[in-house]
């Protein structure tokens, strides 16, 4: 009888299968499909999120790198400027010191010259006086004050010529 076509079996098979299909589809397949769809969406959103955050990280990194580069350049500029200024200052200081030194040297030289001149003048005067006095003593003090003055002036003049 399995080999004979039966209309009743045919019809009831379709109906039974449709009932079975309905129950399985409604209460077993639908939740499964929903879960699979959820997972697919979850994975997709995770992937897009990951891609987005990776792009963000890359742009941030580039930005940071640029900032670092800028900072480094600026630091180098500052350092260079400082070095130039320091060099200038050092040169100025040196210059000023040299000037000061030469000025002091000059002053001292002038002072020495002046003192020597003074000392020479004093010595000359003294020698003139002494030589006049000596001459007067030799001539037995017969010299009038007038003549004495004249002789001193003469001696000073001659000594000055002699010295200079």
């Amino acid at each position, binding site marked *: *009888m*399995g*080999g*004979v*076509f*039966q*209309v*009743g*079996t*045919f*019809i*009831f*098979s*379709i109906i*039974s*299968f*449709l*009932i*079975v*299909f309905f*129950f*399985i*589809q409604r*209460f*077993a*397949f*639908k*939740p*499964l*499909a929903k*879960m*699979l769809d*959820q*997972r697919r969406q*979850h994975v997709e959103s995770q992937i897009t999120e990951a891609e987005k955050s990776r792009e963000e990280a890359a742009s941030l990194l580039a930005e940071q790198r640029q900032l670092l580069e800028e900072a480094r350049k600026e630091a180098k500029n500052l350092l260079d400027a400082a070095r130039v200024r320091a060099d200038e200052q050092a040169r100025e200081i040196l210059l000023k010191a040299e000037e000061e030194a030469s000025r002091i040297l000059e002053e001292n030289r002038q002072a020495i010259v002046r003192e020597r001149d003074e000392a020479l003048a004093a010595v000359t005067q003294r020698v003139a006086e002494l030589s006049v006095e000596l001459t007067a003593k030799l001539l037995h003090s017969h010299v009038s004050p007038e003549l004495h003055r004249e002789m001193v002036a003469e001696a000073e003049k001659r000594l000055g010529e002699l010295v200079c």
Partner: protein
Amino acid sequence: MPVFPTLFAGTIWQTNVTVIATIFLTGLIIFVVLRVGLARMDMRRPRGLQNLIEWAAEFATNMARETMPTEQSVNFILPLAFVMLLFLFVANWLGLIMSITVHFNPHMSVWGLSPSDLAGSKGDIELFDSPTSNMSMALALAIMVWVISHARGLRHPKQWLRHFYSPSPLAVIEEITNPLTHGMRLYGNIFAGEALLGIMLRAPFALHWIPWQLPLIVLWLFYSGFVATIQAYVFSILMCLYVGNKSFEGHAHH
């Protein structure tokens, strides 16, 4: 010739109760397995039975994607493909796993069977069998698929009409042969496997004690299991193919 309990015997509505009962049993088995497997469904960490079910769903999805023209038609056929795949797999295996037979006095009239019917099977009535080893049931599934495919085709009536004569009028013949071969292939494979298994099981032992047919039975059982699995796949993929051929909304883009 095995006989089955029958409803409406003698009328045109004669119905094989074993087939209907095993259809529901198959459905129940699938339903329970799916519900148990998905009871603690976890989107992030699938485990155990859920993996197996997800694999089956993915298998059905790939099968539908390979045969259907558009994603829309894939979504239409996917529930049916998934259920059909599991249903036929379980149904084809039912008759291999066990068979239940009750023996009656062949002179009685029970469960809608006349004494002459019972005499033909020596009083044995089969209570458990693969539903797909019944020709009416296999053809019923095939015709159902055929009706679904045409119902889907009729959503685009002009293209539906045209596909009968273009590219060739042989398509009309195919409309008859396709559902017939679709159903008969399933029925023939499953019925043949079980019929031979039954014959070997009933064969007498040699010298009353040597079970000479045991290795043959084991071999044939493996082969029938293989065939049962393959036929479930073949029927389902052909179903997708037939419905896909009549899903005309995708053909417009080709």
